[in-house]
């Protein structure tokens, strides 16, 4: 089916992602696949809560979220392995909610390599083509296997037993088994998670290129923010079964709609400083002046303003520098991580612990006193409604950020509330 035929067929499908804070369809055309109002419970557990999303016909959509966010349930629902309690799924405009997995013609690749270990690579690749009712002629089977093996660089393993392959080779074969079928849609459930760090880097690039060559849309589920940022055309941030934000990696990185979303992307995570307004300044919890309100307030900084008197200031670690000047509040370096081209500092500053990422050799040492400066133009202000209790500031321990996100009950309310951060100034060339 040609691209224009797809678009014609989909003209009637709306683009709205009602409920999602930042709706945005890819490239302006009608979606290839859409999820509308899908909810799913397992007993008392609400796995998915009114999920809406759209996938373009040549798009790589990454669903990002922590463990237990509902990512795998969403993928299995799209694949037809789970029936939604409510809501509908459409492919090319046609209702598919009631169709079996086979009828949907999607290919699913799992985290575990799920090959037949005693079969050769060739036999593993042939298997989906020899399925009953598929009727692919033998010559065509051979052609497709050679094509897939070539694409994935596994030709030399074709006659080797799958159990003798390394993890990376096995995952290439698993991907090969998905592509020989020429499915309409690829669904990937953390396919790189069990691989070595080095191999993950390589396969990320390969998967994106492969998908682009095949021009087949893909939904890729991961909890790894680096995978989401680097691979996605658009990212869907999912938590506790709900879509929190949809957008390009850059939109979500630079303009997160809530502190919870902001914490999902970026490594080290964004610094969240609890601030209150006093005398035209944003003060930290211990009274340290951090920024002039005028620098962050945008529209609501007039003297008689109604802007909130407190909130969270989100500052990415690379948007802090050490040139605060002699009057700037002092911080103490707690630890220094040297990682190739950059250095990450953990700094006790303004009653909190903040991360600062610097170009490599500029770095101070543990115990050094420094004067950080916030790049005001890149800071994000979150008003207090629904803002989670600030991780890291009240009780400075090392792991607060990770554990707080999981256990803090106030997050649940923040997910449903409409937190509208203020940005200043808007980034010039936001796509």
């Amino acid at each position, binding site marked *: 089916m040609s691209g224009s035929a797809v678009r014609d067929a989909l003209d009637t499908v709306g683009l709205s992602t009602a409920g999602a804070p930042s709706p945005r369809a890819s490239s302006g055309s009608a979606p290839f696949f859409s999820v509308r109002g899908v909810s799913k419970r397992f007993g008392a557990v609400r796995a998915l809560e009114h999920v809406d999303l759209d996938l373009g016909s040549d798009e790589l959509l990454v669903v990002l979220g922590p463990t237990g966010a509902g990512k795998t349930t969403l993928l299995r629902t799209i694949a037809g392995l789970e029936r939604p309690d409510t809501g509908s799924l459409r492919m090319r405009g046609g209702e598919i909610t009631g169709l079996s997995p086979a009828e949907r013609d999607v290919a699913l690749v799992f985290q575990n390599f799920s090959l037949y270990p005693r079969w050769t690579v060739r036999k593993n690749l042939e298997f989906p083509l020899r399925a009953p009712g598929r009727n692919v002629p033998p010559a065509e089977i051979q052609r497709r296997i050679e094509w897939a093996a070539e694409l994935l660089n596994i030709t030399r393993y074709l006659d080797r037993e799958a159990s003798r392959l390394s993890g990376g080779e096995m995952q290439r074969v698993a991907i090969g088994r998905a592509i020989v079928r020429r499915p309409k849609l690829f669904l990937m459930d953390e396919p790189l998670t069990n691989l070595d760090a080095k191999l993950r880097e390589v396969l990320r690039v390969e998967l994106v290129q492969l998908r682009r060559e095949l021009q087949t849309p893909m939904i890729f589920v991961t909890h790894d923010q680096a995978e989401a940022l680097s691979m996605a055309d658009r990212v869907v941030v999912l938590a506790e079964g709900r879509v929190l934000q949809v957008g390009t990696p850059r939109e979500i990185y630079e303009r997160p709609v809530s502190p919870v979303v902001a914490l999902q992307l970026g490594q080290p995570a964004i610094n969240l400083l609890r601030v209150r307004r006093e005398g035209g300044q944003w003060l930290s919890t211990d009274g340290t002046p951090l920024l002039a309100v005028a620098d962050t307030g945008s529209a609501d900084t007039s003297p008689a303003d109604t802007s909130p008197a407190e909130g969270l200031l989100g500052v*990415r670690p690379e948007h802090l520098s050490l040139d605060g000047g002699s009057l700037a509040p002092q911080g103490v370096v707690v630890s220094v991580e*040297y990682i190739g081209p950059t250095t990450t500092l953990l700094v006790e500053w303004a009653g909190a612990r903040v991360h600062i990422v610097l170009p490599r050799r500029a770095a101070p040492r*543990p115990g050094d006193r420094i004067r950080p400066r916030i790049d005001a133009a890149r800071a994000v202000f979150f008003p207090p409604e629904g803002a989670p209790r600030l991780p890291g500031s009240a009780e400075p321990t090392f*792991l607060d950020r*990770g554990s707080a996100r999981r256990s803090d009950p106030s997050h649940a309310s923040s997910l449903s509330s409409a937190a509208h951060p203020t940005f200043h100034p808007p980034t010039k060339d936001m796509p």
Partner: protein
Amino acid sequence: MSFLRLERLAKTYPDGTRAVDGVDFSADEGEFVVLLGPSGCGKTTTLRMIAGLELPSGGAIRLAGRDITRLRPSQRDIGMVFQFYALYPHLRVGANIGFPLRAAGLTAGAIEERVGAVAAQMGLAPLLGLYPRQLSGGDQQKVSLARAIVRRPALFLMDEPLGTLDADQRLAMRELIRAVQRESRVTTIYVTHDQEEAMSLADRIVVMSGGRIRQVGTPADIYDRPADRFVAAFVGSPGMNFIACTVAGINGKLQLISESGQLRLDVPLPTAPRAPTTPSAGDARATLGIRCEHVHVDANGPIVGRVVSDQYLGSARLLHVDTPCGRLMLRAESALSRGPGAELRLSLDASHASVFDGATEARW
């Protein structure tokens, strides 16, 4: 004198597999040494031999001047942290942390005091009365770390302890491990396949592959002056770029020409003591290695290329560019997107280049 010393340590399995093939290194007291390498490089087998969980088929292990090669694990005074949490589910956090002390026969008062001190140091004090299942994954790791350090062993061994954690928890745990190790000054040997983890934690890194050591050095040494092509590719995210070259001449500098002929580069003459022979001009082959942060988009650059991949990383972009010299990776400003197919000119900062022997792949 070194505190832990491995001498020609080897492990050959009955089927003939040489998992560890003559490993020599030492760690000073209080030092944090990371064994880094891909799956199957022998790093975990080496660690298990230090712990006494595997017996070496050759060589010796000395700890604090004592030959421990054949001692039982319990006789070695070593604390081991595995990847999994391995907490006792029926014991509260306090009892989990105190378990090794009770096993060692300390009095209840002494146990309480030591557990309290460690818990305070690691921010676990409010959790002492909870059960492991009530904790987050990160807190469970903290407890397992606390349990390992409460005994004040002579040596910590850690086998990929962060493998099961989410990325943000890994960073927090790294900071915790480093802070605890720096405070306790207990010599630590830590195994990982993650080069970023190794760089961020180690005083020194031992890079392994195929059961052998490829390089021992500080993170900066390993990153800036990799001993061979394997180390250069394995360390760094991404690994180093390589350009196949021939040596055109030596004239105060090493004059290299890319095999494609497109690129001429004068590189400072190698001064490393490891240089096996001075490279000769003529047909000598060499590989130029350059980190992605030393490749720049440059309108007047000598290399013309086409973007094949443009990855947004938040604080920067990682571009993969196909050029006549091969594929080059570089970091670029995150604000400017260059889609696949875009043409670019690139230049290299030769003062940061590494040069490897074309045949042996060792650093010149």
